[in-house]
């Protein structure tokens, strides 16, 4: 089955071209040009992944991003003409998993999309436990379920992948570059802000106090590691 892609972009030429490229690469795209209709289109087409332009008429890409995140963990890749820190971080904080800066190469875009769509066909039962002993975080990898203190924690697929990557090697410190490669699928050095923002988002969901993390620990000057089980 072809992965469904929702393209939210107001530039018709770019949208059409994206359509051609995506169909060539085996996706099934649908389009919406107006931000205010994006949520409706999202609910109707139930896409596997969303390509979202940040500058939209009707409703800003940031708001669309928040709207989608409120309903689902569907991967969102921002298409942005600005690589400025503020815009990128704002987009990531509002829930986007990754971003590509215009003008991007089609191969690059497709690689990013495939990285987000890749399914871990993990049928082997794998249970991971990290965090403090009095309140551990348990991860059921094949079931894509995380719980803490018996309560399920809802994570997006990206946050789940990030947590699993850290939890599988609890004593190892991961540099941001390694995480970018393992979780986002970047082969070359990329923007480490991706890691920072998503670690913050992950912490806000799994930590008791995100200011004093116990599950995802910062190793100053190096990167991150999972808290002791």
């Amino acid at each position, binding site marked *: 089955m072809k992965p469904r892609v929702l393209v939210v972009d107001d530039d018709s030429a770019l949208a059409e071209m994206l359509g051609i490229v995506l169909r060539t690469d085996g996706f099934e795209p649908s389009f919406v040009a107006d931000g205010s209709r994006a949520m409706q289109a999202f609910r109707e087409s139930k896409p596997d992944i969303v390509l979202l332009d940040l500058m939209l008429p009707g409703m800003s890409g940031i708001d669309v991003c928040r709207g989608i995140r409120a309903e689902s963990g569907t991967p969102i890749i921002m298409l942005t003409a600005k690589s400025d820190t503020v815009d990128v971080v704002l987009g990531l904080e509002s829930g986007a998993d990754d971003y590509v800066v215009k003008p991007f190469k089609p191969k690059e875009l497709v690689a990013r999309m495939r990285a987000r769509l890749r399914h871990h066909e993990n049928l082997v039962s794998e249970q991971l436990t990290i965090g403090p002993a009095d309140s551990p975080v348990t991860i059921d990898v094949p079931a894509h379920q995380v719980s803490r203190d018996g309560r399920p924690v809802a994570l997006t697929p990206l946050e789940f992948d990030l947590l699993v990557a850290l939890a599988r090697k609890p004593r190892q410190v991961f540099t941001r570059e390694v995480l970018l490669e393992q979780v986002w699928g970047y082969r070359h*050095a990329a923007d480490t802000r991706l890691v920072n923002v998503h670690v913050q988002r992950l912490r806000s969901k799994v930590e008791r106090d995100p200011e004093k993390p116990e599950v995802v620990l910062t190793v100053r000057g190096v990167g991150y590691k999972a808290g002791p089980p």
Partner: protein
Amino acid sequence: MNAPGERTTGTTSWLYRRILHPIKLAADAAVRAWQSSLQLRVAATTLVITGVAVVVIGVFIVDQVAGGVLQAKRNAAIGQARLGQESARTSLSETDTSVPGDVEAARTKITADLTANGQSAGLFTTAIESESSTSANEITPSVAIPDGLRRLVQQSNLAVQYAPVRDGDRTVPGLIVGEPVSARTGVLDLYYLFPLTAEEQTIALVQRTVAVSGLALVLLVVGIALLVTRQVVRPVRVVSQTAGRLAAGDLSQRIRVHGVDDIARLGRSFNDMAGSLQRQIRRLEDLSRLQRRFTSDVSHELRTPLTTIRMASELLHAHRDEFPPALARSVELLNAELDRFESLLGDLLEISRYDAGVARLEPETADLRGVVQATVEASRLLAERQGSELVVNLPDEPVPVDMDSRRVERILRNLVGNALDHGEGKPVQITVRADADAVAVTVRDHGVGLLPGEAGLVFNRFWRGDPSRSRLTGGTGLGLAISLEDARLHDGWLQAWGERGKGAQFRLTLPRVAGHTLLASPLPLVPDEDARGANAFEFEEEDA
């Protein structure tokens, strides 16, 4: 011998520490105050000049008054003596000078007579001495007649001298007038002793009055000087403070102006100047903001159509094997030039971000060696294409630095790309060195080098060293300009050295802790002479 010497040294240092040093400090402070305060200088100058004038005038006045008073006393005393001479002669002619009792009686009588018809000479006492009698002093033992006066009187003169006399139980300054008087048994010296108590009191009063009024005058004049200079200095200080704030960038600063005097004119002119400056600067700012916005907007607006073109071109490029040769080549050129166009656009946007002042440093502590290695890895392909070897010299210890790795890597990529581009296939050396405060990376090539004066130009936008040289890597011409801005954002240095035929070296120096000021770099900008000699030799061998 040593002990006294040591004690002397000890005493000297104690003296220095306890006395000389504080004095020196106070003197320094005074000199500073003197140099910095116009008001103080004017007041001090006024104080000195007025003080000297008042002292001179006061001394003159006191001198004149005292002289006048004493002269009058002296004249009166002489008159008294002359007047008394007659009656004294009458009284003494009957007196036997050899009998002290008689002399004393005569003296009392004379004094009484003279006092009775006394004139303005005031109170006095008398003394009588016999020239022949050695016991004369015993007659009035309390009075010491100066020898000089006595000699004059014994030469039959009427003589006057100031000398201490007794007034009651006290010895006070006095005036003594002496005259010889013929007595029955010889010549007696009659002395009139005038105590100058009253005159002294008068003179002291005059002195006090002159001193007090002089002091008051000096204080008054100094006060006036302070007041007047204050009136001038205060507006000047206001102007200077306002000018300082203007210079610091607050262009809305103005001076409040009252009246129409010179100071007010100064204030008004100053305000006019500030207003004119503000208008000019605003206009320039608006202009430059518009220009920067325009660059940024153009770059952004170009991106969306460029993305479409890019995708179309990639699609064509992927199918170029199916095209006839001319079309296929056209697609290749289209694709390659799009790459260049894109990097140029990216650089333009980046530089416009710096121009707009919105570039922000996001420092994180990271190992500089990692960034250098990543750069070297990324440049490997280009180095192979150029036939240059990349020689990396890293410290063994990790080099943690507070830096924005993305920007530092961009700087290094630019420097390495630049070195490979101009290295003429010879090795490019990358050296990292660190000390406690700073880290330095040098990128050295052995290519054409730079002409004198070019080291400062290489960071200019779109500057090309040799226009006739082919562009191998197709750089945008903005790479080094952006690198310089990146280095500045880190409070770091980016410098170039080069000599024609000897190659070039670029040095990046960064503070290890973000925000610290760099004082020195761990690596020299100009390559070490010996190392260069050795390298040059190596190349000759290789070339041969």
